[in-house]
């Protein structure tokens, strides 16, 4: 009986449900409280910082021997910038840490922070990309005049000819507002100092514990062995908890300096101000189409506002270079030209957020298809069908290799599920009654589970990608798998246990997966980029497979049978074709305690394995029906369908959960959330009453259809699925809104498409009609 493919309730849940989870703030008891004093201005020169006497207050001047954070990308068009742990000489964005205070409890730390006064000679801040790129703009970083920190350019030779031959050229100018991944638990760390060893254990709410340890050790210039980083239960991350933040450096420095335990738990305001942001992008894209709707070429100018610094380890190249590489998405794009820039400004640092650039890329290609279809008089589904990739492996214009997928099939499934024909009739009736319904589609690819070659190709100095798993069956027949991935809510431990269970013939309840502790797990990269199921899963399968081979070999000796005839299932090692069997725990105990009997396999049941795949593409089509209230500009999502192909599903319930959560964030991207700076660089949206994540009232029921294309790109046959919901949903919603408002001839060119924005478009359209 296989455990794969079953919606097994998660092994992680009982303790979380009973309030016995251990999130970082739960570990802060007994530690001194740390509070950062932050800059109230976005740009300026620090003249002095007055600190109260006799208190534990530190500024940049105290941080002797601590290096700045400075991630590197080996590209000639990348300019490295240094991020100090506490601002030195200059402040670069509103919310940057100027000083750090330590007190006995949180209240006292906050009181003390109020007493620190920074005298800053404020200067004009550069907030938006157009200002940063304007002729003669002040350089945010003196050594980067022009304010471009990374730039990629590609141009295929036939591009001009494609545009010259085009029957129709579609030009789009699209904008996405700045957003926060906004995990419900903010960032935080507890650094515990061990007086005997001088070692520090940092408990932190992070996605990449090993990488964090390396980064901290480099910046603090201490051996990695003097540090242990533990990610306990983590309250969501979505990319925001990948980076090395200055706050963690300060925390470890303080623990060592003061030789005591210190804790910093950020509040929501701090999370908005000083944690990473994303999605502040502006795209100017032209598409050349033949008369029959064939896409001939794309020419794109893509800009991403990367804020004041570059995030470690993935760098500020993450959004611009993802945009450059993946704009064509699921479509055949014979000729491709692109310039993609990362622009620095006096704003919060950009870092990954679920989807990275692809929500905007998908919006671009999907608007492109709808607009071209309208202009050329072709059905929008048909124009997609003509251009979607359909032979595999497919090589994209930027050299990405797509494995088998079901691009057209997924679209057909979504069209059928949403009853496109029936909807059109209903839409007509509704319009006659003064109601504006619309339908929208979004077809996309989701590159997942990619290993070192993909990251090396980006020129990264630190090349993530592989995962190492150490798998052992202990003498009691329980299994311990130690993984370098670091899940934070996905339910990965359950899904991995299902995979291992099938290899070893024991039930998932007997499989303990350990993660997120640099003392207890092999070096690994953590959980991001829809990689853990594919890569940690692959390594688990390999390692468990090797343990199974050992088990079979021991069992064969014990039962005097041939190894090939031993099967492991239902907790037993059985000799096929006989009724001979042994309980697996008995075999396990013998492997450790009677090892002299098994000279050919040696003692114990412990194996390591590494997996470093090239990557695999999931695909999906989202379809939705919306109603726009033209009086208020508000939108109601009536139906939302996801036809998803993530290969073989290990735990379908968990996969569906990933899709639900991603779609909700996509809805937020399309309609609600935006971090807004004023023209001085002061962030206006610093509470959950200003930044508007959707509630249960705004998220509709999401109907999911699965396709399961089995490709050879991964050894588990699973594809990643963490980001797709967030990638595809915005385009489907915006397309549906444009469809709903087609009587007004409105083009939506920015996200979030808030009620105010929609009302403005309607007012303008009405004025034009009457003018």
């Amino acid at each position: 009986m296989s455990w794969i493919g079953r919606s097994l309730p998660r092994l992680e849940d009982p303790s979380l449900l009973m309030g016995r989870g251990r999130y970082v703030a739960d570990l802060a008891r007994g530690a001194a409280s740390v509070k950062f004093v932050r800059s109230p201005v976005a740009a300026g020169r620090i003249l002095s910082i007055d600190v109260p006497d006799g208190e534990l207050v530190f500024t940049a001047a105290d941080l002797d021997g601590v290096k700045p954070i400075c991630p590197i990308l080996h590209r000639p068009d990348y300019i490295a910038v240094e991020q100090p742990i506490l601002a030195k000489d200059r402040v670069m964005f509103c919310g940057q840490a100027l000083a750090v205070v330590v007190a006995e409890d949180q209240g006292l730390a906050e009181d003390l922070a109020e007493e620190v006064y920074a005298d800053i000679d404020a200067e004009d801040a550069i907030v938006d990309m157009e200002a940063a790129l304007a002729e003669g703009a002040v350089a945010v970083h003196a050594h980067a005049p022009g304010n471009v920190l990374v730039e990629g350019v590609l141009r295929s030779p036939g591009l001009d000819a494609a545009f010259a031959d085009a029957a129709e050229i579609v030009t789009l100018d699209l904008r996405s507002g700045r957003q926060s991944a906004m995990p419900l638990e903010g960032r935080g760390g507890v650094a515990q100092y061990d007086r005997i060893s001088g070692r520090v254990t940092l408990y932190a709410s992070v996605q990449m514990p090993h990488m964090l340890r390396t980064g901290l050790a480099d910046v603090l210039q201490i051996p990695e062995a003097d540090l242990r980083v533990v990610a306990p239960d983590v309250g969501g991350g979505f990319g925001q908890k990948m980076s090395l933040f200055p706050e963690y450096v300060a925390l470890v420095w303080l623990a060592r300096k003061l030789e005591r335990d210190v804790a910093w738990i950020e509040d929501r305001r701090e999370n908005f101000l000083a944690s990473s942001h994303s999605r502040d992008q502006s795209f100017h894209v032209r598409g050349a189409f033949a008369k029959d709707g064939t896409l001939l070429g794309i020419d794109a100018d893509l800009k991403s506002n990367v804020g004041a610094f570059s995030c470690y380890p993935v760098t500020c190249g993450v959004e611009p270079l993802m945009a450059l590489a993946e704009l064509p998405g699921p479509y055949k794009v014979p000729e491709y030209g692109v310039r993609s820039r990362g622009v620095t400004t006096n704003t919060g640092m950009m870092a990954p957020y679920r989807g990275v650039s692809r929500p905007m890329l998908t919006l671009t290609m999907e608007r492109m298809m709808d607009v071209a279809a309208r202009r050329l008089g072709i059905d929008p589904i048909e124009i997609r069908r003509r251009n979607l990739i359909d032979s595999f492996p497919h090589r994209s214009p930027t050299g990405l290799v797509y494995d088998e997928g079901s691009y057209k099939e997924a679209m057909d499934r979504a069209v059928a599920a949403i009853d496109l024909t029936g909807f059109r009739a209903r839409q007509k009736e509704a319009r006659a009654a003064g109601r504006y319904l619309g339908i929208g589609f979004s077809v996309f690819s989701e590159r997942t589970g990619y290993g070192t070659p993909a990251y090396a190709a980006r020129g990264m100095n630190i090349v993530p990608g592989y995962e190492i798993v150490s798998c052992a069956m202990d003498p009691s027949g329980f299994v311990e798998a130690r993984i370098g991935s670091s899940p934070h809510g996905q339910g990965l431990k359950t899904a991995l246990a299902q995979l291992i269970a099938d290899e070893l013939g024991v039930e998932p309840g007997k499989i303990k997966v350990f993660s997120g502790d640099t003392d207890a797990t092999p070096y690994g990269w953590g959980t991001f980029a829809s990689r853990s199921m594919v890569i940690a899963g692959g390594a688990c399968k390999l390692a468990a497979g090797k343990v199974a081979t050992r088990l079979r070999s021991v069992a064969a000796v014990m039962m005097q049978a041939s190894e090939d005839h031993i099967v492991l299932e239902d907790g037993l090692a059985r000799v096929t074709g006989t009724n001979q069997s042994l309980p697996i725990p008995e075999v396990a105990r013998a492997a450790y305690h009677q090892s002299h009997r098994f000279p050919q396999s040696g003692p114990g049941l412990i194996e390591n394995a590494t997996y470093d795949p090239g990557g695999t593409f999931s695909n999906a089509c989202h379809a939705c029906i919306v109603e726009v209230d033209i009086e208020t500009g508000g939108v109601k999502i009536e139906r939302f369908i996801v036809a998803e192909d993530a290969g073989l599903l290990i735990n379908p319930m968990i996969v569906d959960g990933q899709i639900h959560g991603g779609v909700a964030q996509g809805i937020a991207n399309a309609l609600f959330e935006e971090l807004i700076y004023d023209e001085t660089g002061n962030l206006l949206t610093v509470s959950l009453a200003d930044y508007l994540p959707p509630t249960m009232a705004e998220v509709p029921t999401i109907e999911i259809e699965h396709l399961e294309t089995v490709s050879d790109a991964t050894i588990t046959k699973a594809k990643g699925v963490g980001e797709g919901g967030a990638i595809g949903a915005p385009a489907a919603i915006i397309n549906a809104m444009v469809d709903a408002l087609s009587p007004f001839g409105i083009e939506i060119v920015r996200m979030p498409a808030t009620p105010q924005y929609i009302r403005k478009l309607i007012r303008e359209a009405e004025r034009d009609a009457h003018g």
Partner: protein
Amino acid sequence: MANKHVITLIVNGKDYTLSVEARRTLADALRDDCGLTGTHLGCEHGVCGACTVLVDDKPVRSCLMFAVQAEGCSVRTVEGLAKGDALHLLQKAFWENHGLQCGFCTPGFLMLAAGALEADPDLSEEEIRDILSSNLCRCTGYQNIIKSVCLAANEMRACPPSADR
């Protein structure tokens, strides 16, 4: 050092005598003074609902209430929901229907739902949706939360929890 007040909170049926500043929130008192860290803080300004507990059986945002205001009240937190290792019907439904991912919002949703369903076991799905829309979850898209609560509501109606809660 600010003035402290000695208060007694009754949490999950047990007395806790604490000495707290007037400005200490109920959430901080529960977490730091009582050691009951199941109640989470997602915003500390009354929007996310992660800190929801029951005070005299009514859902309350414990980040918006001072500990001194809860003096003598009966407070219930997520730690008091299960009977020993036997999960409450709501907890069981969340487990079986994948009503949680990271689990950070979960205690708040559980207590909000428990309070609402105890006050009115016959709430319709629409009413439940309306009540639960006062809390935030960043992971689940809410779909399995509403499903879990509705299924638990059915079961709670079929076999009401004993009065000894």
